[in-house]
């Protein structure tokens, strides 16, 4: 009896692992395909023979050199990292202050103002593109880092996330700080803000990933190759190297490098952040 229970348990465990291996394989295949295609000749890349998984005529590392020379990747990396850095800093800074105000302070018109913030989350982002473009254009900020960062200066989702975070903190903490003579700003910055670190990290991760993936805004606002980002640069390569799949894949592989590095460094925070917000990247 015990023997059969053990066997059943083992079979269940094996099946579970087989399922997980298959799922992991499905997730990895596109990534592996991208890297392997980047190392093939164009002839091999467009070959429909499914057994040509690996390059048959040598590993063509020169594909990387070709796209590296054609597009200034240093500039693209720099612009993308600046975009991510400023968007994360601005989004976290403004959302944490707005979240505190909406979550803890009492002021007239609070509900209406918060409803306005929520409305922003309910309409598609594309609606804001034209007015935002006109604003950036009138300010003379086209083809600048500020122009790129502009739509991410404030975030409705972040404000909502941080508001929830502040509301979850016990009132007694703030009351105790007030009795000890802390001003509103001191209560916010010294007592409550450090306690919402996990929400801030979640917001930072979301903002970084969305900034990295943002395609349309950099394409509109940065027509100059020196000011554009990796995503927009890659989209433009798609047109230029439309038929040269190895070059395209080499460019795509180079483009994901910063995100892979960021993920490796902040792996723990990524997982915690997603768990905290219950979000899906």
């Amino acid at each position, binding site marked *: 009896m015990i023997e059969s229970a053990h066997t059943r348990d083992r079979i269940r465990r094996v099946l579970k692992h087989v399922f997980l291996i298959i799922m992991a394989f499905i997730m990895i295949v596109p990534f592996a395909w991208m890297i392997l295609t980047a190392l093939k000749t164009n002839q091999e890349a467009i070959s429909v023979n499914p057994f040509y998984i690996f390059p048959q005529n040598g590993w063509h590392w020169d594909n990387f050199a070709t796209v590296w020379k054609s597009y200034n990747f240093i500039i693209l990396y720099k612009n993308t990292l600046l975009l991510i850095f400023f968007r994360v800093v601005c989004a976290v800074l403004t959302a944490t202050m707005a979240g505190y105000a909406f979550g803890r302070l009492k002021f007239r018109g609070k509900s209406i103002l918060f409803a306005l913030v929520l409305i922003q989350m309910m309409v598609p982002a*594309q609606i804001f*593109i*034209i007015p935002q*473009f*006109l604003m950036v*254009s*009138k*300010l*003379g*900020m*086209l083809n*600048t880092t*500020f122009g790129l960062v502009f739509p991410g200066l404030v975030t409705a989702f972040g404000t909502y996330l941080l508001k929830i975070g502040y509301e979850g903190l016990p009132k007694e903490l703030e009351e105790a700080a007030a009795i000890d*003579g802390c*001003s509103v700003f001191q209560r916010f*910055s010294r007592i409550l803000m450090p306690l919402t670190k996990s929400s801030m990290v979640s917001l930072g991760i979301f903002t970084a990933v969305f900034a990295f993936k943002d*395609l*349309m805004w950099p*394409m*509109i606002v940065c*027509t*100059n190759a020196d000011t554009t980002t990796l995503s927009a640069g890659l*989209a*433009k390569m*798609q*047109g*230029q190297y*439309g038929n040269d799949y190895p070059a395209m894949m080499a460019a795509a592989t180079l483009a994901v490098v910063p995100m892979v590095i960021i993920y490796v460094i902040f792996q723990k925070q990524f997982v915690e952040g997603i768990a905290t917000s219950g979000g899906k990247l």
Partner: protein
Amino acid sequence: MGEKDRKKREERRREELAKIASLGKKQRLQYIWDYYWPWIVGIGFALVFGIWFIWHSATAIRENWFSMVFPNAMTRVGNHSKLWEDYVAFTGFDTSRKNVLFEDELYFDPTSSAGMNNAYYQTFVAMIETGQADAVCMRREEIEALGKSGRLLDLSSEPCRELFDRYQDRLVYSIPYDETYSADPVPVGVDVSDSILMTDYHIYENSCVYSIGAYTRNFDAACQFLDWILKGKTGPVEKKTAGAEAETEETD
């Protein structure tokens, strides 16, 4: 309550100043940095950003002499390409005062809804609707499809009367989606298949049509560009492709 708070703050400020004054020079700097670094960093950043923002806003070139989009172009005709250089040389526009923008890195197919479901098309729409793009060149069937949206200037409208008369043998028509505007075909482009865009710069194969954006801010420059690429041709399009077909038939 407010008065009490103000007094308390004033008292605290005086205490803090007295405390800082009582410290030695090195200790004083250390104390200020330890307790006030977020303020110092914040104010420093705000100052640098503010100066840069004012300077950039004051010196940036906001306006365009002319802005043109070449979606699905087969050769490079973007900024500082040969076409761009030749056009700027022809017009004599001072590009240090205003921009001349040629965008050739957009790829979409307006003839199918699937072909427009991408960021390139959305970028194009944003450029046309904000007036950032004054004109567009595409293949005939693409302009015919694009013209339905109402984003291309109706060449039979009053400001285009001269253009309409001059190029009436070359007009390309499109029936707008908006039936209240017109249920009949509306002229939305000028066929420039025999222009220098095709003969000298080889931007497209088979056909090329020039259209002006409905929200253009540089209508005169858009007309001037059309005249320049056609080099005075006003009659029907010289059917180069028809000749090629005849040759092919003879060969067969």
